[in-house]
């Protein structure tokens, strides 16, 4: 049997794309990008994080275009990113400068500055709120006005407070190792393909843009025994971090000459992981290491899972899949994994026919032998 090259399907493809638009519009209703921005915070944050491009408006547009499909929205935003020039690199961002909206610790009750719950689903009943079906604009306005009045009655402060890091407090006490500032320029996986062993900067870059579900699953797998890391969360902080860039044309510019360009909302996690280490007297003793997680937007589960995987990958000697950087880093990217899986539904006529030929050949040989 010979192979036949085929072409065609152009009209069918055009009709299919039209049908896709029909599916989006057939309900005779549409959602404004602004409405997605105002009401789907979690989804917008997740799309930006997995696309590795921070722009809430474009993320909302991608969600609208993708009809809420997360993988498609991430693909759209990642594709758009590839059409834009990279104009600048930011100055080094330090999360001590974050305007904190939420900050908690699972390790200590009393942390300097206190625990700030901010906005969280953690203490809500997971029961469907059927009143939301009837929610009107005037309901919203009334609630907001009452809330703002309530908040206005609270004691105003004099200045903005910047919260210290929990880990710094512990470092001062000598309970955690203090690492010197490491200023080696980071590697960039968008400029150079990942090779193993990966550098720490590459690992963190892959993890922070990983698919939320994949990062969470592998972090969970480590906790369940497919890894050796089971941390206590030292600090979760959510808030906005300012971005500055240095003047591109001015040599020897000073700190005060930087351009402020805006801010990004981030979730950052420092996990404390107990590890056995040998001390100077050659005796084993328990110490703590830090697992680090961070991502665009408010996505605490992903950031915590990232902190677990960061620690796992820091200990490649452990014989578990979550400690294998090739296993973790090559399988958590949304566009790569969904792209590869979904390519399986595209025409594989030649390769499949070839496999069929092999099977038929073997069967014929067997029949001949039996006769």
């Amino acid at each position, binding site marked *: 049997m010979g192979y036949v090259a085929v072409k065609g399907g152009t009209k069918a493809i055009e009709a299919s794309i039209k049908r896709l638009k029909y599916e989006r519009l057939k309900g005779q209703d549409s959602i404004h990008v602004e409405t997605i921005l105002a009401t789907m915070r979690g989804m917008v944050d997740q799309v930006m994080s997995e696309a590795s491009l921070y722009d809430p408006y474009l993320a909302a547009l991608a969600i609208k275009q993708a009809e809420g499909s997360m993988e498609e929205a991430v693909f759209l935003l990642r594709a758009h990113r590839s059409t834009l020039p990279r104009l600048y690199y930011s100055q080094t961002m330090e999360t001590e400068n974050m305007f904190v909206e939420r900050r908690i610790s699972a390790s200590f009750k009393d942390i300097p500055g206190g625990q700030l719950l901010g906005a969280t689903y953690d203490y809500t009943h997971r029961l469907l709120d059927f009143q939301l079906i009837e929610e009107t604009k005037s309901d919203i306005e009334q609630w907001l006005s009452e809330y703002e009045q309530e908040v206005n009655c609270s004691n105003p402060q004099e200045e903005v407070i910047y919260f210290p890091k929990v880990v710094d407090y512990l470092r001062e006490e000598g309970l955690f190792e203090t690492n010197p500032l490491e200023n080696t320029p980071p590697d960039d996986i968008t400029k150079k393909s990942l090779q193993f062993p990966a550098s720490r900067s590459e690992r963190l870059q892959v993890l922070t843009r990983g698919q939320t579900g994949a990062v969470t699953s592998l972090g969970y797998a480590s906790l369940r025994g497919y890894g050796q890391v089971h941390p206590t969360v030292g600090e979760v902080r959510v808030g906005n971090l300012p971005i500055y860039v240095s003047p591109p044309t001015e040599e020897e510019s000073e700190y005060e000459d930087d351009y*402020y360009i805006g801010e990004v909302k981030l979730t950052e996690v420092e996990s404390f992981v107990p590890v056995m280490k040998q001390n100077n007297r050659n005796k084993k003793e328990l110490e703590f290491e830090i697992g680090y997680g961070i991502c665009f937007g408010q996505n605490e589960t992903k950031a915590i899972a990232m902190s677990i995987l960061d620690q796992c990958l820091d200990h490649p000697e452990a014989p578990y899949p979550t400690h294998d950087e090739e296993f973790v880093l090559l399988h958590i990217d949304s566009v790569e994994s969904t792209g590869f899986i979904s390519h399986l539904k595209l025409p594989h006529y030649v390769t499949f026919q070839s496999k069929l030929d092999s099977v038929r050949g073997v069967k014929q040989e067997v029949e001949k032998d039996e006769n």
Partner: protein
Amino acid sequence: MKRRRRTEILIQGDSHVAKEFAASILEQYPCNEIISPRYGLTMLKIRESAKNSLFYLGEVLVTEAKVEINQQIGIGIVAGMKDELAKHLAIIDAAYKAKLPITNEWEIRLLEEEQSILKKKVKKQAALMETKVNFETMDI
């Protein structure tokens, strides 16, 4: 006022301030547009607190514009798709670089706007402080 503080005020504050400043420059000085507002990316470099090393967090979409006033090039950069603001920032940047006398008149307005930004931030933080936990130790 130095650029870092100035751009913080102009971007975080009311966008009308940048618009008014830019308009007052354009009334008095010729301005050449070198790069009209365009979109691009800024890669964010961040320090992680476990090992104190650096890595790239991801990119933020920015709008950039460049103009020339009195042979000085001004740059406007702002996160998001904000064509007008980027251009106004570029004009103001060029005005400061060219040391135009009008920039001295802006100082008071900028300081006022800075106070207004601070007030809003303080108010926002006070509202967030309502969610601060007061632990009580229980007797068991």
